């Protein structure tokens, strides 16, 4: 197993100390930081994401893997900046007004970050105006909306309408998800895409940026 595979495996298994040591070792050996990021850390997080999607691992394993990834990414941060490596794009994520659930949102954040994007997490219980503000300020292209209650999911529509009201709806792709949400419902609210889990969300964001 080469060092990149070892990093990937350590991320997947949630061995934070090993991720730290191996990432530093790879850098010291002269491995390109972008390669460490893509072939080591991100490979690991994508692998755990796939297992999660197949119901083979659960939230604790995913969260610990994500912590491992961010520990490794922190070590690479300065080197990546020096090398002029930039995120593939920026997305805004938040949970709708009246809804305090954040696990789902956090998992999507990790997977999308793992796919190489800059994620602006505006938090939970957020009004439509804050989604718009964050989108404008950060030059985002994709808006990710989380709603976990049947009583809060209608707010997805308010967010879409806020972007329309501002006359900027066409500049953004609006995606939504959460336990009670369905593809039909997102379409009814005027959103663009529904994804059923964090891995699908990350895949969709990649597809949007690649299109």
């Amino acid at each position: 197993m080469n060092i990149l595979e070892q990093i990937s495996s350590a991320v997947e298994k949630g061995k934070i100390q090993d991720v730290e040591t191996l990432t530093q070792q790879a850098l010291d050996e002269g491995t390109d930081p972008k390669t460490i990021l893509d072939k080591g850390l991100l490979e690991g997080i994508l692998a755990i994401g796939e297992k999660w999607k197949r119901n083979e691992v659960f939230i604790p394993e995913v969260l610990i893997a994500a912590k491992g990834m961010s520990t490794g990414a922190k070590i690479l941060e300065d080197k990546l900046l020096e090398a002029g490596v930039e995120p593939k794009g920026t997305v805004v994520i938040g949970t709708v007004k009246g809804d305090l659930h954040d696990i789902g949102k956090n998992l999507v954040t990790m997977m999308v970050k793992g796919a190489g994007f800059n994620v602006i997490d505006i938090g939970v219980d957020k009004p439509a105006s804050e989604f718009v503000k964050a989108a404008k300020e950060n030059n985002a292209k994709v808006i990710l909306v989380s709603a976990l209650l049947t009583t809060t999911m209608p707010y997805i529509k308010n967010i879409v309408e806020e972007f329309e009201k501002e006359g900027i709806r066409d500049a953004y792709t609006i995606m939504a998800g959460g336990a009670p949400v369905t593809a039909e419902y997102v379409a009814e609210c005027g959103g663009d895409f529904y994804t059923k889990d964090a891995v699908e969300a990350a895949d969709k964001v990649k597809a949007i940026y690649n299109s």
Partner: protein
Amino acid sequence: MTGRERIINIHNNIKTDKIPWVPFAGVHAGKLIGYNATEVLQDADKLYEALMEAHKLYQPDGLPAIFDLQVEAEILGCELAWADQSPPSVKTHPLADTNEILCDCKLPKATDGRIPLITNVMKRLKESIGYETALYGLICGPFTLASHLRGNNIFMDMIMDEEYVKSLMEFCTKVSLKMVDYYVDAGMDVIAVVDPLVSQISPEHYKTLCDEAFSTVFEYTRSKGALSSFFVCGNATRQLEVMCESKPDGISIDENVDIVAAKELTDKHNVVIGGNIPLTTLMLHGTQQDNMKYVVDLIDNISHNNLIIAPGCDMPYNVPFENTVGVQQAIRETDAVRAMVANYEKVDEDIEVDLPDYENLEKPFIETFTLDSESCAACTYMWDAVKKAKEEYGDKIDIIEYKYTEKENIARCVKMGVKNLPSIYVNGKLKWASIIPSKDEFYSTIDNHL
């Protein structure tokens, strides 16, 4: 056989005359009489009134006295965010930034928080309906309670600090046992341990960190002479086996689990399974027809021993009342509803239905479309209201009931565009769908047509 007997018998492997039906009408019960979620969860009289209405309309075999997983958390110092159409959410987690465990002196007392309100309602329910209907006391499961106290850190703790999680689970188990005491003493037949987060951890983590807590609560509940049920939400397919090994008397699942496959497993453990009518796509957003069809299909595809039919979880506040009535009717009168659904799907084009000349009626014509006023409680109440009006107005009005059990009436429903049953039409116009009008409102409408 009373509903209570059905629930008790099904858990004791005794054959029941019908499949037991337990609608989880939590805050939704408030909707039935115009109270919001906060009102029914904070006011004993309103909660009691709402549950009595749910009992009257939905004719359940079992009924939860309250569906709110935040009762214990609130007492233990979590701040709650209240909402009009859903139970409150936990806003703050007192143990989020500390590795301490709460002192046993904080364990809920019978006089703490909303416990007096809840036990008051439980005792009144026991007195009024509790001898025919099984009453469910719902407690927050120890793992979900641990997450309320600790926040999302609990998930990382499971890997990085197992000992802390064990200690926290021990404390939360003690809380659960206290709640079991209060609720069983208030007359509850079934203690439902509701732990939605169990579906989010691996079976291995469940075994090492949760099994002891749940086993203890179920064993204790049995020792108090009550039945125990384990409610979970989300895709708990992988966790079902270990949940069964904790030995609850029953398990209740939502639509994320294939109930037919799950039942094969729960049957092996002789555990009753309950579920799993989809909450959002079907109960909230589906039609009455969709709901009836789903339940008939479920009944036709699953063995009936060890089975309770119930919504997947707490019913959304705005579930249309007629959808729940349709579910109940499909469970109670399965053959008739199966025929209704089949007839509706292929409405006989040959059946000629002549609609009255509504524009030129001599007197107001009140048409009542029902599933069947003899077997559907809500239909009975609506048809009774119409018959009372007839007694009052005599020859000044005409009335008729169209039962959905007859093909001609289904064809009439289709021709008139009747979507929900029961419904009242006056002179060919829909006036009340599902809602039984008050006497004043009803008579005023009739007067306007005289």
